[in-house]
């Protein structure tokens, strides 16, 4: 009929040697609910055969020393943070059975946010919430679950509605969330309720084994020492005082309808696939996007995976092309036009010096060498991309380069500027405080930065938007109707590339080929690449015509 077992479960240590003092007894007080809850959990772990897989996260509170007793993997968490710690463990070791064991101060007060969000994410963890309406370990201070009128060391006149508000009902709170699979409140005070508690513990752990998601069991639990009661009195207090406010019962049970969610966390819900945010800027890069990340076309190819070998990692990061000797040339791996870029490198590294020598311009007039370039205009004029194009092209040509943006709150209507350096030597400061070349796309930026330009600086300004020539006579001013030229080609958005064309025609700092390669690498929409190229050529043309006119 009954098989009487008179020994501890395997999942408890026989002797509690991690603890000071008598290794045969726990540090819990006689009549405390923790001992009962511990035993039920330990028996369950043994019965389910998951001792090796189990990792128990213990809180700050009396059960901080749960690792004295449980012969499972143990992690002790900062106060209130056990659900976050458990999240980190579970996401790292999905096969592990991760239990978070918390008291009321830990879970409902200081850790309120962590439990709320772990529950809301539907983390596949199991939480045991021991509610005894008091802080035990620290000696009887008020808990968020202390009852109205309950006297504690920090509510010596009794918890008042006016001062501390209502006791917090955690199960009811979490039941407002969609994700939790199983929420039940039980109590430890008599055999019937202890057995209900035992059953709930098993169900909550089984749910995790089955990959169903977030389960929490709130256990109303006696604390005779701090309540200053006998064990018997404290059990009656659970029944008579706590239970009328904290109603026992199941607040959520989707156990039978829930599908295993072990993989759900890493799946992209249908309809939320990436791509919707991609169309924002026709030219691709802008200051609020990662500079190199995902072109739309590669997002379709690259998806979250679990079976990635170490060999594949550099290619996924865009560090080298996937093709190996003997294989046919594959699709671009990353950056869309990565192969275009690497072609350039192959050619570049074939030269004796091994770094862009073939493309390195040799006929740069003295005054334009080692330029300190400042580029400025309205936000939205492509100022940052203009700078990136120069830096990318410079890098491909074998220069040392740096690109430093002005960055600010993501608001409309601001001005943008960036600093670009192209140098044959190591670049010290990437800050351009005294530009030798100023590219100004609108009037306010010319007014702002013209005083910074060194005497003799080249100032290319967008005469489409700037009606007055620069006020200084000690600089070389080059008007360029960049916006008009861009509009003729098809869009004012390529004003920036018209300026690039003018700059390279004027200074010969970069070859057209290297700029084209940079555009290939930076502009994500292939349709726009051609338009950008034409803008560069038109900018070059405008300067050459001017110079011809001067010669004539």
């Amino acid at each position, binding site marked *: 009929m009954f098989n009487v077992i008179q020994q501890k479960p395997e999942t408890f240590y026989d002797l509690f040697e991690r603890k000071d003092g008598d290794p045969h007894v726990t540090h819990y007080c006689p009549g405390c609910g923790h001992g009962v809850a511990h035993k039920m959990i330990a028996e369950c772990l043994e019965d389910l055969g998951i001792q*090796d*897989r*189990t*990792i128990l996260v213990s809180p700050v509170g009396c059960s901080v*020393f749960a690792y004295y007793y449980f012969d*499972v*993997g*143990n*992690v*002790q968490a*900062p106060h209130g*943070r056990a659900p*976050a*710690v*458990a*999240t*980190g*463990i*579970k*996401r*790292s*070791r999905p*096969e*592990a059975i*991760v239990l978070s064991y918390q008291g009321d101060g830990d879970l409902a007060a200081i850790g309120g*946010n*962590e439990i709320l*969000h772990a529950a809301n994410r539907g983390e596949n963890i199991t939480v045991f919430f021991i509610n005894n309406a008091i802080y035990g370990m620290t000696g009887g201070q008020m808990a968020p679950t202390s009852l109205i009128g309950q006297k504690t060391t920090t509510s010596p006149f009794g918890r008042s509605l006016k001062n501390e508000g209502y006791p917090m009902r955690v199960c009811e709170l979490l039941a407002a969330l969609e994700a939790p699979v199983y929420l039940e409140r039980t109590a430890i005070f008599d055999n019937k309720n202890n057995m209900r508690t035992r059953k709930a513990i098993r169900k909550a752990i089984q749910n995790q084994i089955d990959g169903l998601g977030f389960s929490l069991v709130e256990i109303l639990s006696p604390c005779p020492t701090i309540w200053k009661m006998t064990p018997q009195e404290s059990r009656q207090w659970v029944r008579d005082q706590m239970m009328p406010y904290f109603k026992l019962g199941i607040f959520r049970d989707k156990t039978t309808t829930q599908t295993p969610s072990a993989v759900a966390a890493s799946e992209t819900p249908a309809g939320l696939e990436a791509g919707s945010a991609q169309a924002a800027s026709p030219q691709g890069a802008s200051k609020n996007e*990662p*500079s190199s*990340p995902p072109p739309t076309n590669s997002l379709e190819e690259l998806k*979250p*995976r679990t*079976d*990635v070998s*170490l060999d*594949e*990692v*550099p290619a*996924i*990061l*865009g*560090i*080298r092309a996937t093709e190996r000797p003997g294989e046919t040339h594959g699709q671009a791996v990353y950056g869309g036009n990565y192969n275009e870029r*690497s072609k350039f490198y192959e050619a570049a590294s074939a030269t004796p010096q091994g770094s862009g020598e073939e493309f390195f311009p040799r006929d740069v007039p003295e005054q334009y060498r080692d330029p300190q370039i400042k580029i400025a205009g309205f936000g939205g004029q492509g100022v940052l991309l203009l700078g*990136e194009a120069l830096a*990318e092209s410079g*890098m491909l040509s074998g220069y040392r*380069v*740096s*690109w430093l*943006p002005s*960055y*600010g*709150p993501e608001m409309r209507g601001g001005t943008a500027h960036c600093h670009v350096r192209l140098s044959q030597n190591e670049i*010290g*400061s*990437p*800050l351009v*405080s005294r530009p030798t070349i100023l590219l100004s796309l609108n009037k306010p930026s010319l007014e702002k930065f013209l005083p910074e330009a060194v005497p003799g600086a080249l100032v290319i300004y967008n005469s489409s938007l700037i009606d007055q020539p620069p006020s200084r006579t000690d600089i070389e001013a080059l008007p360029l109707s960049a916006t008009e030229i861009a509009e003729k080609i098809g869009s004012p958005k390529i004003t920036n590339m018209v300026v690039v064309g003018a700059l390279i025609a004027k200074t010969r700092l970069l070859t057209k080929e290297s700029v084209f390669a940079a555009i290939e690498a930076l502009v994500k929409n292939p349709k726009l690449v051609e338009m950008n190229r034409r803008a560069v050529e038109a900018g070059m043309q405008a300067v050459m015509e001017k110079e011809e006119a001067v010669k004539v």
Partner: protein
Amino acid sequence: MTKELIKGNEAIVKGAILAGCRAYFGYPITPASEIAEAAAYYFPLVGGTFLQAESEVASINMIYGASSAGMRCMSASSGPGMSLMQEGISYLAGSELPCVIADIMRGGPGLGNIGPEQGDYNQMVKGGGHGNYHNIVLAPNSAQEMCDLTMLAFDLADQYRNPAIVLADGYIGQMMEPVEFPEEGRVGPIKNWAVHGDAATRKNVLTSIYLSHEALEQHELKLAEKYRKIQENEVRFEAYKIDDAEIILVGYGIVSRVLKSAADRAREYGIRAGVFRPITLYPFPTEALADLSLTTERFLTVELSDGQLVDDVRLAISRRHPCDFYGRRGGCVPTTEEVFNVLRHTLTHPAECNDAMALPMGMHAV
């Protein structure tokens, strides 16, 4: 070997993945958000975990969990978020859990602004959280080093079972430069002390509580011995034109770049200036600076904060010489010309051992 023009913040993420990091937990904040954004893209692609936490408090504790489980894991933030992480970092240090956290410093205190500052020096280098512990703190000054030092940070963190911080300012995070990434990825070491959810690691406990005073003292002495070893073996710095220097400029991060340009400028004027750049802020290159003070008398520390780095410089050299200080705040970064002016002023005045913000007005402006 190919180069990629890339932001420092993104270089951190690629470096982390190449170093075998497969778990990222973080909360967005300017100017560090590109790290979270790039991690959100790349980590799932390489089979890793990316999770945007509900707060920095949660993210550092997710790191605590992932590190307990033996993962190479990381987070990133900036000043206000780093403040929130301090509790967790103290626990990580106390439980001897390795992790890497990038702090892309912004202006402060309070909400401050998002400009580049170096005001988190004290909170990251000196502790910041409670108790006796140190972070390993690495200070990159280029996009390349954002990758390289992040990778090194993972190795050091695991070697010493200690949190490692990559401490950069907003400019180093936002700046794009060519980076040569290693062409082979690595995996982190197997950690026998962690809890893997298996029989082999079942007896392991990760905790920072030691109830008995004596036991805690023993634990802290063990930590102290670890920090001593770190100080002995892991100091890194860069010295630029210091052999004949009559004045040495000291700075890290973006400032060190400006200092190099200023030293070059000074040498054009016949002033023998050099630059000393700590790469490890903890362990601080105290010995190296002390040695330099045997041959050089004048030191000028420049930082984007109110005199935090200079405290460590003064501790290193003060037995022999004072150190002048020039600090900008609020997101203002001194220009080459500005530092050159301060340098000239320093050399024509007796060493003051005080804040050179007391310089004549106008010297700060270009």
